[in-house]
């Protein structure tokens, strides 16, 4: 066993760091560091910078414009960008749709859509969940009926993250009601500017507009926007679950958030000493740090066993559970560390250019918003209870 990165990998880390120093705009990293809202333009600007360097589609094969990295390189990139307070890469086109098109798309679909994901011509969103299909995704009801050269789409998607920015949505739709419910699902690409598509915001508990409902009323979708075969969409959707595992644990983001928590806990004072040195809070911090260190190694074990992209479902599920638990615990301890200053909520303070007097410590404004927002982590992407079933079913094979 050897836990060290190779000298070549360390050189790569240095290269990523120097790239970030030169190219990551300070205006954007400062917003990420201080927990301010990122605009669509912020994301697009950062994507364009990465695309310029050929580092945007970190998991794509080189022939489609990926950098051809090993999993270790992709991991290093994830950690370094997070520690440098770069925005996360918006995953819908790059990490979700792209790999599906590369594996199952037609040559025409690949040559049309993949370059447009890379250069930002399209902003994709994901149309999976429905009001009646959450953890039981396969019970989705949005219907697509073939009429000549088109599918006619009727139904509703929900929890559509950043759908307000999107011009394209990839959808799981029902094309058959015969047989098992998984066998009547197809994978469709839908232009959101088509008549009959309506996006309505859902305001989350912390007051932010991040997710949406998307309604389809007699929306006509050309048949060439079907990916793969009709009624095989469930297979493609499941492929997504095994494809991209490098980042499922969110190691980089949690490392950055833990560093911030440690800073807050050292700055906040109680009984005349830093909160971080009070025995109870110190124990909570230590527990969290150990959990994070353990998960980092588990993550590297999974990566190193799965060079090439796919990891076992059960290990991926373990990383999803523990990764989200750790991230949630970080946001929870950060919130607690603020004491009474977790309560004030000056929404404008999260916008760029706000120059009002902060209420309480200057890092306080986004903390509770972040805490409540991140309750989503254990719910989305297959709730942590669903992940537990995946783990046990894979082990038991009953």
């Amino acid at each position, binding site marked *: *066993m*050897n*836990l*060290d*990165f*190779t000298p070549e990998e360390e050189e790569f880390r240095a290269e990523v760091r120097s790239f970030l120093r030169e190219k990551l705009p300070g205006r954007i990293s400062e917003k990420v560091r201080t927990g301010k809202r990122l605009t669509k333009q912020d994301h697009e600007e950062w994507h364009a910078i990465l695309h310029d360097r050929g580092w945007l589609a970190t998991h794509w094969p080189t022939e489609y414009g990926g950098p051809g990295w090993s999993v*270790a390189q992709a991991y290093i990139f994830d950690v370094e960008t997070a520690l440098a307070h770069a925005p996360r890469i918006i995953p819908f086109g790059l990490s979700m749709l792209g790999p599906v098109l590369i594996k199952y798309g037609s040559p025409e679909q690949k040559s049309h859509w993949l370059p447009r994901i890379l250069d930002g011509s399209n902003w994709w969103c994901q149309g999976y969940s429905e009001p009646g299909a959450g953890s039981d995704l396969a019970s989705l009801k949005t219907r697509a009926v073939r009429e000549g050269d088109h599918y006619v789409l009727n139904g509703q998607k929900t929890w559509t993250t950043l759908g307000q920015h999107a011009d394209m949505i990839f959808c799981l739709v029902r094309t058959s009601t015969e047989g098992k419910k998984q066998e009547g699902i197809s994978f469709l690409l839908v232009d959101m500017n088509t008549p009959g598509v309506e996006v309505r915001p859902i305001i989350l508990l912390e007051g932010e507009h991040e997710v949406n409902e998307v309604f389809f009323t007699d929306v006509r979708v050309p048949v060439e926007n079907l990916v793969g075969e009709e009624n095989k969409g469930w297979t493609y959707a499941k492929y997504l679950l095994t494809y991209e595992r490098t980042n499922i644990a969110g190691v980089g983001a949690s490392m950055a958030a833990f560093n911030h928590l440690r800073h807050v806990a050292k700055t906040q004072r109680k009984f005349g000493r830093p909160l971080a*040195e009070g*025995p109870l809070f*110190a*124990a909570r*911090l*230590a*527990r969290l*740090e*150990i*959990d994070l*260190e*353990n*998960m*980092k*190694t*588990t993550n*590297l*074990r999974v990566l*190193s*066993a799965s060079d090439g992209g796919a990891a076992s479902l*059960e*290990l991926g*599920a*373990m990383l999803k*559970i*523990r990764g989200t638990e750790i991230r949630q615990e970080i946001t929870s301890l950060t919130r607690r560390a603020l004491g009474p200053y977790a309560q004030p909520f000056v929404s404008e303070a999260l916008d760029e250019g706000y120059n009002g007097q902060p209420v309480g410590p200057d890092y306080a404004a986004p903390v509770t918003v972040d805490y409540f927002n991140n309750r989503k982590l254990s719910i989305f992407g297959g709730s942590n*209870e669903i*992940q*537990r*079933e995946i*783990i*046990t*079913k894979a*082990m*038991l*094979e*009953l």
Partner: protein
Amino acid sequence: MDFNHNDDRQMLGDTLGRYLQQRYPMDIRHGISASQAGWSAEHWTALAELGIVGALFDEAAGGFGGTGFDIAAVFEQLGKALVVEPFLGTLMAGRVLAKAGGQEAILSDAITGTTILAFAHEEAQSHYDLADIATQAGEDQALTGAKAVVPQIEAASHILISARVAGSPGEEGGIDLFLVRAGATGAAVRGYPMIDGGRGGELTLAGAPAILVAGDGYPLIEDAVAAGIVALSWEAVGIMDVIKAATLDYLRTRKQFGVPIGKFQALQHRMATIALEIEQARSAAINAAAALDEPRIKRERAVSAAKYTIGRVGTLVAEEAIQLHGGIGMTWELPLSHYAKRLTMIGHQLGDEDHHLARFAALGRLL
């Protein structure tokens, strides 16, 4: 990065595993554990001849291993078979002798299996605090005091003992390390069986003659305990893998309400948590093994993180495995119950989860 054992270590583990599977099955193990000696000289000799003791020491000490991952490969297998023989004491005391130097003959005999070592450091009042040592070394290096719960001390021919030449309990300075022969005048052992198998004992010293191994021995003690924690962590990993396999098997085959109980969601979720936590514990054990030869703070942080994790996860896995087995999990007859006992008692050796959590936090403030 490579998370596989190299070929030599893989072979070592396989050889040991095969031996234990064939010659140390559960009924034999129970017989050895319950015997008057509480260990088997025959197996000890055979295992030493296989090179299992030599694997715990580096070449300078006359062995052919000695890294964290060598210790890992050995103790993982010892855990799987619930071996009661005195490997831990021999590892820790031998490591001190190797690093201190000057005791090559004894060390060489330990590696060939003709000498067995015990590590007698903790005292009744220390409660895992390595510096809380009250045993005194008097003139002519005669030792007076008492050592608590020393594993397999009756098996040892030489006992490594820490004793104060200066300072007071709680201070790291002023602790020297000595070697006492078993049966020496003034060194009395009260032996007893342990709840998880094998034997331990209380050592009372009343002017026992000793030879000095090392002055100012605290760093050597810490290093030996670090190696001991790596060993215990991997013993626990081996045990947890056995428990996991046995519990999965039970969930597949035990039927209630007309179906295998593994069909029930309440049990599935508990099993998933067990499996997830075992992987975290394995990662912690890997981190500790990798850090064993690193500078002090890095090593000690990784070791405390591992012992905390093993303590927390070990108790969880032991308790949950018994619960998932139901009534049968409570029986002596089922091997699982013995794995659960040993796993829980590992938490009581060389510091429990609370001790190491606090220690991890304190070491963090030195960074």
